[in-house]
């Protein structure tokens, strides 16, 4: 009697998670396995025949100069993550205290995160306009005679994208940091103050270690989000000028949906997956040294 009840219970359980499992299976597991298979074929969308080509796609990738360029650009893109987090922490500490227009400021900082990517793209293209844009206008105003060409030069374009991305992520990182700061018991800060700690010491030695789990979370999710993102670059530069802003995810998109080279795109996707995996594992191992729960 008891056993059959258990059985029935678990069957009911499967029924409830069933729809979700089917979704995961159809839209995640099967495509993932399929893309792993595609990596070893020369499948081109719309093309009638597909051959098994073994490791050709991987060999091609390793010999592809553009892959190397995309990899390098991806790492430059990733610089935005720690910078954005650092700024977000400072802003969060400032906004955690009672400052004027606290709520308004919080909302303003969060604004970019909920704004449409295309709108962001157009506004920043105007701001970065090399000769008549306000950013270079300002730089010239403070005496820089030769301000960077930002998006119109291959040297600066990736950093310009970084700046946009830092600005975009700031609000999100700040909100999460704010939540973490609110969790810190007042007594700890109070105790530090009574012991004679200066504000900077309090932040460095009390607050920062206490929010380290949050920092860890933001770092991992931030790196993954950034490494996967291409929408903002697609909207602003399409990977140009030249190929100075082609990051890996955009490179995959172009190969798959512009050139229909699905097999090759699958190979690069798995390379990207491997990179994300290595990053995450390394951080996971390293966290013991600096994350305090």
């Amino acid at each position, binding site marked *: 009697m008891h056993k059959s009840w258990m059985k029935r219970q678990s069957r009911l359980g499967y029924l409830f998670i069933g729809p979700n499992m089917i979704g995961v299976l159809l839209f995640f597991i099967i495509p993932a396995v399929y893309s792993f298979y595609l990596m070893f074929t020369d499948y081109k969308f719309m093309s*009638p025949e597909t051959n098994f080509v073994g490791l050709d796609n991987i060999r*091609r990738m390793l010999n592809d100069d553009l892959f190397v360029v995309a990899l390098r650009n991806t790492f430059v893109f990733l610089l935005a993550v720690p910078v954005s987090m650092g700024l977000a922490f400072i802003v969060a500490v400032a906004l955690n205290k009672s400052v004027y227009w606290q709520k308004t400021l919080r909302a303003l900082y969060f604004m970019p995160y909920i704004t449409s990517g295309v709108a962001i793209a157009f506004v920043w293209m105007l701001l970065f306009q090399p*000769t008549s844009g306000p950013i270079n206008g300002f730089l010239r105003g403070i005496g820089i005679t030769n301000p960077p060409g930002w998006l*119109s030069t291959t040297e600066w374009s990736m950093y310009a994208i970084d700046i946009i991305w830092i600005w975009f992520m700031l609000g999100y990182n700040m909100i999460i940091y704010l939540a973490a700061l609110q969790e810190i018991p007042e007594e700890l800060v109070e105790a530090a103050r009574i012991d004679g700690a200066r504000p900077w010491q309090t932040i460095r030695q009390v607050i920062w270690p206490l929010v380290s789990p949050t920092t860890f979370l933001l770092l991992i999710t931030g790196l993954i989000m950034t490494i996967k993102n291409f929408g903002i670059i697609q909207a602003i530069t399409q990977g140009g000028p*030249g190929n100075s802003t082609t990051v890996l995810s955009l490179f995959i998109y172009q190969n798959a949906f512009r050139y229909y080279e699905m097999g090759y795109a699958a190979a690069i996707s798995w390379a990207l997956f491997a990179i994300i995996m290595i990053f995450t594992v390394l951080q996971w191992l390293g966290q013991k040294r600096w994350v305090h729960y």
Partner: protein
Amino acid sequence: MRIKKGLTGLIVGALMLGLLAGCVGKNETNGGDNGGGAAGGKVKLTMWGAVPPENGPQEVVDTWNAEHPDIQVEYVRFVNDDDGNLKLDTALSTGQNVDLYVNYTLTNLDKRIKGGTALDLGEFTDYNIDEKMGEDAASWKVDGKYYGMPTKKNAAFFALNMKALDQAGLSVPTAWTWDEAREYALKLKTAGFKYGLVQHTASYVDPLDSVLVKNGYVKADGTSNLDDPLVTKWLETLNGMMKEDATTPPLGEQLTSKMPVENMFLAGESAMINIGEWLIRTSNNMTEFPRDWKIAFAPVPRLAEQEADMVKSGGLGDFIAINSKSKNKEAAWEFLKWYADGGMMPMAAGGRLPSSNAVDQQTAIDHLLGDYADSYDKESLEFVLYGDETPTFVRSIAQEVVDLRAQEYEKFFLGNQTAEITVQNMVKRHNDWLKQNQ
């Protein structure tokens, strides 16, 4: 127990069915419509094109539908970019209802033929495409066959500010070189324009393709011909115009501000623009872009010395194919013939001149210019549209090659590499691509 088990299976089954039905539901309804057609009832055709319905296509299908109650056509718009073409290709390869679709490049058409979704029109014998459309149609042939019908006359030309030309004492050229165009630009700039010439980034490479169509993209030994001396000539001419003469906007600035070049020409900031027939759509909009001067037209300049060596961008466009999986091929064919032989006329106002000789040229031009015929120099327009005998081409190279070229010449115009290195890189990458795709 048993009932419960059955019930669970039933629910799971129903959920699965629901999911699957979501995927194929669209197909089934279409199948239903088509079945009706066979029984002598209504046939329903779906045509995919990239022109917004309000710019002509809706009027075209409305006219047809009113005259042909037995064959009703529905127009579906896709945007002619990567995403839009992907949408069409997905629809084609998954068997959604697409009976007719418009190809805008040979590159896209080629994929669709290989995918087995374009019908060989050779099976219809009551319409001679070569006769109706003229010699230019042949550049759309693949393996000697027509997998569709080119319906529109492409026209690439320089539009010129006639007033400025007259004031500077310059004549409207009927054939010229890039060196001459560069001088024109300089003279017009000194006459008070911010720029002598502006171009769309899409038209940038037309001179290169002119050269390479004539001299071959690939040499006899199978390697890249992107090191043709005229390629370097093009790079240096345009670079000189950007940097020495400042008669054309620097590429970096044009890319980042997505420069609205048509507006700049119509607002009198630039005296010349390298463009095509679609300019008329904007230049006829006198409320937004008022002007008190006439627009004159000149052929696109050539890089080669000799006039006989010129092949110009142009040819025919809007290549409409019939889906080989369509259940109503005959009906689609009827519509296609009607469309090409004048049915498409409402689209002329948007710059789409019919290519069929069944259509009167004068009527087409009247439609094109609408109420503002007086604001154009008609003589030079007729020359670039119908008078110029220069052979034409339709760009047929793969997207990868277009992109790799662009990436390298962008670096050159931005000053990152010399013309020599640019050519070397182009050749190397083109050769790699050729090896990959032999």
